[in-house]
């Protein structure tokens, strides 16, 4: 079972290091971690995917709260949310295979963002499962290079993060 945690952290130097150091020293297993800006310049947002079969997600939440620069952590796994991963795949393509790859890309609602004589770069956004299937479909053509951003997520509806914090006891230590 994968848990998706969203953490709002102070946008200050070294905060990512504090979070990474915490995961390392507590032996937390993390599938992915992304960081980016938010609507507030002083706040950045981390999306953290925890493999809950190996690491108790609530322990991750409580320990994140111990970091002074972590403002709020939310486990949005059970919430209706938009979850997105982005992939860039450079795949082998010649005159014969190119049309097929382009067609498959359209089926997955991806975009061809670069064309070279012997390769294509495809960009695809979507939920993890969709990306995984697309990668499987591309594999037979020969993947030259691939990069995934890791997951970003947002709870549906008007509220910010759906509110109601994990742990029940609010931001502590």
């Amino acid at each position, binding site marked *: 079972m994968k848990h998706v945690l969203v953490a709002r*952290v102070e946008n200050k130097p070294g905060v990512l290091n504090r979070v990474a150091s915490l995961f390392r020293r507590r032996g937390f297993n993390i599938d992915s971690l992304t960081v980016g800006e938010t609507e507030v310049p002083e706040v950045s947002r981390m999306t953290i995917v925890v493999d809950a079969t190996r690491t108790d997600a609530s322990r991750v939440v409580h320990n994140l709260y111990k970091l*002074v620069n972590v*403002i709020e952590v939310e486990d949005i796994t059970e919430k209706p949310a938009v979850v997105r991963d982005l992939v860039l795949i450079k795949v082998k393509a010649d005159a014969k295979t190119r049309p097929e790859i382009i067609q498959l890309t359209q089926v997955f609602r991806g975009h061809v963002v670069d064309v070279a004589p012997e390769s294509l770069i495809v960009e695809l956004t979507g939920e993890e499962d969709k990306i995984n299937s697309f990668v499987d479909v591309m594999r037979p053509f020969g993947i030259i290079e691939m990069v995934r951003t890791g997951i970003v997520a947002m709870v549906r509806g008007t509220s910010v993060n759906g509110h109601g914090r994990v742990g029940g*006891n*609010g931001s*502590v230590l």
Partner: protein
Amino acid sequence: MELTGAEILWECLLREGVELVFGYPGGAILPTYDAMNFYPVRHVLVRHEQGAVHAADGYARASGRVGVAMATSGPGATNMVTGIATAMMDSSPVVCITGQVPTLAIGSDAFQETDVTGITLPITKHNYLVTDVRDLARTVKEAFYIARTGRPGPVLIDIPKDVQIARTEFVYPEDPVELPGYKPRTVIPPEDLERAVELINSARRPVILAGHGVLMSGAMRELREFAERGRIPVAQTLLGLGNFPASHPLCLGMMGMHGEAYVNQAIQEADLLLAFGMRFDDRVTGNVKTYAPKARKIHVDIDPSEINKNVKVDVGIVGDLKAVLQELLPHVEPVDRSAWLEQIDEWRDDTRRRDILNWDGGGKLWGAHVIHDIWRATEGNAIVVTDVGQHQMWEAQYYRHERPFTLITSGGLGTMGFALPAGIGAKLARPDEEVWVIAGDGGFQMTQAELATAVQERVPIRIAIINNGYLGMVRQWQEFFYEKRYAATPLVNPDFCKLAAAYDIPAFRVTRREEVIPTVQKAREVDGPVLIDFIVEKEDIVYPMVPAGADLHAMIRRPVEQYEKEVSK
């Protein structure tokens, strides 16, 4: 008013109530030391920066106030690491201030440059690198706030030399500290309170596990009221000793690896554990799989990450213990638990039969007897600061602490070398109290350079070395678990009395039991630091013992026959 960064630092320290700083100067912190001349603070020059942090730690634990340690960049700062980790593990409020190379030189491997905020990131509650003098005042205020509130801990502020020199308009941030990601608070959901009360009042064999949190929250009176009202016995962690009077009929004493057998037996048979400000350390639980199998568990702690970390509990309440106990107290019913208390007393009788105090020692000097006699001679009233090893456990077993904040010891990290510098800090924090440093012959040598600090600063501590010629605790493990192969544990020691003499410290050597109390009394009369070298039995054992990772009830006990034979003689 325009001030330099160094001046701003002192202005802020004074506003935090700092009167005393432990430290050691060097190039990168020189502007701060120079500015110190113009401020009413006492500086205690240690002989090693580890000692500065331990002294600040001892000061903090004895006084309940934040201790301050200061050092230069690079080697000065790295020498602090052991002290900081010690304070972190025992949640001690210490603020460390280090000089750093100038901001423009950071990252260039400049002379005496070390990434101190990087090194101390996992061993501080929080740390700061101040790169703009305009941030300094607020940073100092935040650091003290973070160090002393919530679950206390060490905070480090790294200040580049140019920031110490730079000038800016000094405006003290008068507003209370407001940190978006740090808001310690107590919230007790009513259903948790209700469930806790139900478990408490229906328990027939409850035991309170009282930890360091009782002391840090100042919940001694509430704990006592709770225990007395519910007729519930109190077991203590090592760092909790003193949080409940040792002579109280409900006091069981220390639990865990070297706790008395009846205490651990009570825990294993209990139907309810009330964990108050403790964290189920592995030294306390033994094998967690077989720990207190019959007990429901209620855990109260200020740090939510401690709840369900080592031991799964039925009710976890996050908050300041004193506030939580005040909430719970009115609901605690006076349940008759005499059968349970009688049962524990029965187990206690068995422990008494094996107690080394019932034995005259057979003409030899035993560490436990020395501690017991120091306790008698000081009427149980001293502040005792221990090092780490066998003597530490004998202290915990045989110096019976009646008052809070009278035992200062490195529990979580188990740092040898802690006692002497921490003892200096404790004595400076509470000059009217009698302070005894009790150290092993091994650990004492790790920081013995601080004898000079005690002399230079005229700190009248009493030092007892429990000299067994071994790294005794390690030797004990080798005896039990490595077939007496004493690899690297025998010690060839200096003559500690001559060593003391080199510092002009009066010293006594004790080799026989009957000399212990008279010599301790003599030492108590000395004006200034004094040292006693107790030459004790070399191959002695701390009983009882739960081997690491074993079940809590699987204790190695002192062989009763041997002692009965000796006692009957």
